[in-house]
């Protein structure tokens, strides 16, 4: 197992190399002059422009720029943005916001999604089951930005239950955006749990558990649930990785100073170092959580072993 994990971690190196280059090339290919975007309408002397271009290696060809970037990267230097702030500093400051948002969202997914899924799974065909079915279809069909604005308008503005912008109220500020961010996955977790439970209830070992004279709560709560939750837990693991890597729309709607909004602004203003740094971090997080999921799989299902 240890060797498997080590090998998987080593494999992330070429993936990260390739992906940073791709992002780098895409930022390079973006139309527009980042320095012009930086100065805006102000008049600025050509010598200052030349100086800035030189400082950020903007005159070099792509591969030279990339090599210089990598050179800094291996020394632990993620570079700076055009106002001289280090990218590492920005990430350190913004990441906790994204992390909190992701934690709130994953808790919503796990709690609401699992409960809804389990209840509709054990009462297949009931009113509740159909209610879950209809509401999940409904939720899945609404784009996040619509749901976000609706929640902001109704729960935040009209009813005044939640703050609608910023993070001034601590964890409480994250509840509404976290819920909005989670909705799609709540629906997915509920459906996945239900399907998995219904499928597993048909298995022979459930019949065996009943024939052993186990009480129904043991038959379902222990024997069936343990098997049914394997795909759900692994989905939640992978989804946590996805949540951490960019809730651009949600952070935008609720004005949260997290990594998603930062990378969005960085793309708009052609901040190459910021964009590449943050997106690379996203990719690393995503790969890492995929590895976590694979390890989790083996822990949950004894039939799966990695060499």
């Amino acid at each position: 197992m240890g060797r498997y994990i080590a090998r998987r971690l080593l494999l992330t190196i070429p993936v990260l190399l390739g992906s940073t280059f791709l992002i780098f090339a895409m930022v390079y290919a973006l139309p527009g002059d980042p320095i012009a975007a930086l100065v805006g309408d102000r008049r600025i002397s050509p010598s200052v422009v030349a100086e800035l271009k030189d400082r950020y290696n903007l005159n070099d060809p792509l591969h030279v720029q990339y090599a210089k970037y990598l050179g800094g990267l291996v020394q632990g230097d993620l570079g700076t943005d055009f106002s001289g702030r280090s990218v590492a500093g920005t990430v350190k400051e913004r990441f906790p916001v994204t992390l909190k948002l992701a934690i709130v969202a994953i808790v919503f997914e796990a709690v609401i999604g699992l409960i809804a899924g389990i209840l509709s799974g054990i009462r297949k065909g009931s009113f509740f089951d159909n209610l879950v079915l209809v509401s999940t279809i409904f939720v899945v069909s609404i784009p996040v930005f619509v749901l976000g604005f609706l929640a902001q308008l109704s729960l935040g503005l009209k009813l005044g239950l939640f703050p609608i912008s910023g993070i001034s109220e601590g964890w409480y500020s994250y509840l509404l955006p976290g819920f909005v961010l989670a909705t799609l996955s709540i629906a997915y977790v509920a459906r996945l749990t239900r399907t998995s439970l219904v499928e597993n209830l048909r298995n022979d070992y459930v019949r065996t558990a009943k024939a052993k004279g186990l009480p129904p709560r043991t038959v379902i709560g222990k024997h069936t649930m343990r098997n049914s939750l394997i795909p759900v837990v692994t989905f939640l693991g992978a989804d946590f990785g996805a949540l951490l890597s960019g809730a651009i729309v949600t952070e935008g709607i609720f004005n949260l100073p997290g990594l998603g909004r930062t990378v969005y602004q960085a793309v708009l203003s052609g901040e190459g170092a910021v964009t590449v740094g943050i997106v690379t971090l996203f990719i690393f997080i995503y790969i890492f959580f995929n590895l976590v999921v694979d390890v989790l799989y083996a822990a949950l299902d004894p039939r799966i072993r990695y060499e």
Partner: protein
Amino acid sequence: MTVTAPSDSLHPTVPGAHLLEVEDLSVEFRTEYGTVRAVNELSYHLDRGETLAILGESGSGKSVSAQAIMGIIDTPPGFITSGEIRYQGRDILQMPKEEQRAMRGAEIAIVFQDALSALNPVFTVGAQIAEMFRVHRGTSKKEAMVHAGELMDKVRIPSAKDRLKDYPHQFSGGMRQRVMMAMALALDPKILIADEPTTALDVTVQAQIMDLLLELQADNGMGLILITHDLGVVGEVADRVAVMYAGRIVETGGINEVFGNPGHPYTVGLMNSVPRVDQRGMRLSPIVGAPPNLADIPPGCSFHPRCPRAEVRCREERPLLREVVLGRRSACHFAEEVLDV
């Protein structure tokens, strides 16, 4: 006592005369495609230490009747529509749910066909056996595991104590079936139902498992219901046999008598479709046609569309299971003529 409407009731005896008495049991499954009558007015009994073989093709209702006894039919879609299942004189179907559950596994236990799917893949075999003691007797985890080890020893799993912590997929097919048996026998049940216990196994392993089953039966004197479609197995181990077709018993009697001189055309057909060493080179004569759709059982004798000696009467009048020779019953209008063949 007045005489009730004629039924297939096999042994209208005093309730409680036998260890297990199944009387007029009917089970149906209500599906979207219609009502499937899986078991129809089934009656049989079982004594201590006795082996009753229930023989029949797939879909003859033999497994469903076993599941009805175990109380593990899912309702819906399955419904027990009539009958009694008396264990030591008491009707299981009338017992409170908690009492029924407490009996399951402890008094009446079952071994299923495919042990790989019948065992839970994510729990160790030790834990799955130990669960019997923990749930029924409230034994401590540690002590239950010790018992589990002893049981695995008893069913002759090599180095049993080291394998307690192994998972089902780490065992071979035969060993898994032994684990199933250890689990079923954990609480010394008085009745063991073996539902095609050897069908999924290699022939050599089949014999070992059957031998073990019989040995364990002799050990604690339990009644054994052996559900199978394997005539060879039945001939070797059973005391009595009940042949099922379309959810009914069509013939029953002592094993040697029934096999030596079958009294129902279906039994005759079954015997003729088995290859025999003393008739090498001869063609097998399978029963023509297919078993009936249980959602649409033919009127009259349900076997008549496939029966070589069917007459008009067979299409119209359902033959009752009646005593044709002392201790032998057949549900055929022409049982006497079949017997003479």
